[in-house]
């Protein structure tokens, strides 16, 4: 419908009123088209979203958003064997003035763990699985996906990240119990450097497993020490029972047993016995058991007599 009015201004100038009505209509149409195009193609939305989510790295109760951003940006696959993972979990750690996130996508019994830098670049990843429901169920805190135990870092300056993985049921106390594996993460394959099975008893009721430069050679060693509780129920470590010292020449751990060792059986890699695992292989208890059996270390029970079975 066209409406044409000619109007004479006070100045004597004749203006076309129809034009002044139609231009806003065109402008509205243009804005509408821009609006809908912006919505349909989501121009810049994801980028803006990821920028806004940066603060989530600094606030612990928002860490899981880091996992969501990692999945949305494609840095981490949100599926496990083609099925959408039910859990997207993240924790953030600091190392040498930089921060990294450990993102876990999981369907509870299987987890894919990725280590990402601030720019969501993948620094390492590994996969874990278990058939033991108690591994992911904690009495007081509910379910936790399978992940790692230590913050991940390049402990031996070998250009690869290393971490400890626990295969014991989750419990609130930090004492070590059950199977553990120390893994060096590669881009195509991982190396299992050390596995152990800890079974404490009346003689040594509780131990901690930790990493420390025990012999001051500037390389991190794995230290297993007995612990006691203080009056305030805090765990206090006593002197080490077993130390697995890092041999930089041979690139493996060497056990230094100083005291009672009936509570632990272990396997360490050696130049003649390396254990590499392709990056997509599931790391599980079977793998640890195979290495423990291969080591042939005596199987001792709490009383120190042979024959404990799992």
């Amino acid at each position, binding site marked *: 419908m066209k409406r044409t009015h000619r109007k004479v201004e006070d100045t004597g100038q004749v203006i076309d009123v129809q034009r002044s009505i139609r231009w806003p209509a065109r402008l509205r149409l243009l804005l509408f088209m821009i609006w*809908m195009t912006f*919505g349909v193609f989501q121009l810049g*939305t994801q980028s*803006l979203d990821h920028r*806004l989510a940066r603060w989530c790295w600094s606030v612990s109760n*928002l860490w899981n958003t880091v996992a969501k951003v990692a999945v949305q940006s494609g840095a981490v696959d949100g599926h496990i064997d083609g099925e959408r993972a039910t859990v997207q979990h993240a924790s953030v750690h600091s190392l040498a003035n930089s921060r990294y996130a450990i993102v876990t996508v999981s369907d509870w019994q299987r987890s894919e763990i990725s280590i990402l830098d601030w720019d969501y670049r993948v620094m390492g990843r590994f996969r874990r699985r278990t058939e033991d429901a108690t591994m992911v169920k904690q009495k007081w805190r509910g379910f936790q996906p399978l992940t790692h135990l230590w913050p991940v870092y390049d402990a031996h300056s070998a250009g690869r990240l290393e971490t400890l993985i626990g295969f014991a049921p989750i419990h609130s106390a930090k004492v070590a119990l059950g199977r553990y594996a120390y893994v060096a993460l590669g881009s195509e394959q991982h190396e299992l450097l050390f596995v152990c099975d800890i079974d404490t008893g009346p003689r040594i009721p509780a131990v901690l497993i930790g990493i420390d430069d025990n012999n001051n050679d500037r390389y991190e060693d794995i230290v297993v020490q007995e612990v006691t509780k203080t009056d305030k129920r805090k765990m206090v470590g006593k002197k080490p029972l077993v130390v697995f010292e890092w041999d930089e020449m041979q690139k493996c751990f060497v056990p230094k047993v100083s005291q009672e060792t009936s509570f632990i059986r272990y396997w360490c890699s050696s130049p003649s016995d390396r254990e590499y695992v392709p990056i997509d292989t599931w790391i599980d208890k079977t793998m640890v058991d195979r290495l423990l059996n291969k080591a042939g270390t005596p199987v001792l029970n709490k009383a120190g007599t042979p024959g404990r079975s799992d």
Partner: protein
Amino acid sequence: MNELSSRGIALVVAFHTIVAACVLTIPSSWTWLAGVGIARGAEHMTTGGLQLPPVTPTQVGIGLALSISIWTVLLLIVYGVCICVADLAYFRDRGGFRLAARRVAWSSVWFVIWAVMTLLLNLERGGKFIQPARWPIGETFEARSRLLSLLILFPILWAVGLKPPGSDARVSRRGILTLSYAVLFWILWAGVWRGIPWLSIEAYTG
């Protein structure tokens, strides 16, 4: 409402929007963390599920402010989209546009009613309505789900009773007219919806 000045209308909208935003922030983890901090001390301010380190009081304060601000902005966008619909519908009827715009302001009271409803539903959903000690943290509806419930009903509530543009339309067409305005609202919202950074919004609204 029709006698109110533009400033008065702005105040009504602002009041309803901010009250609704505050109510919507109640079931957020920020409120829970603030409560824990006041009751038990700052070192206990953690959602705790994964042995997380505690958040700081500053972070909780910023979180609360962010949550209220984000809800305020989202509700103002709802208001703005209604104004756009009114502008398109009453393009050649500025008197009708003014009435429709004032009606949006009046309808903003629904923001508060809806916010209270979602809070009650949220408590009922988590089985906490009868156990106040357990609320508000837990199975909260995500911001997206909550807003969606508003977006379905609000344009209809707003458009009911609006007069047709021009004076020649019959009253019997008002049902179709209401639906048309609602559909126009939903189309415009579809454009907004996909442009909203939902990940961060859902994180910060707690």
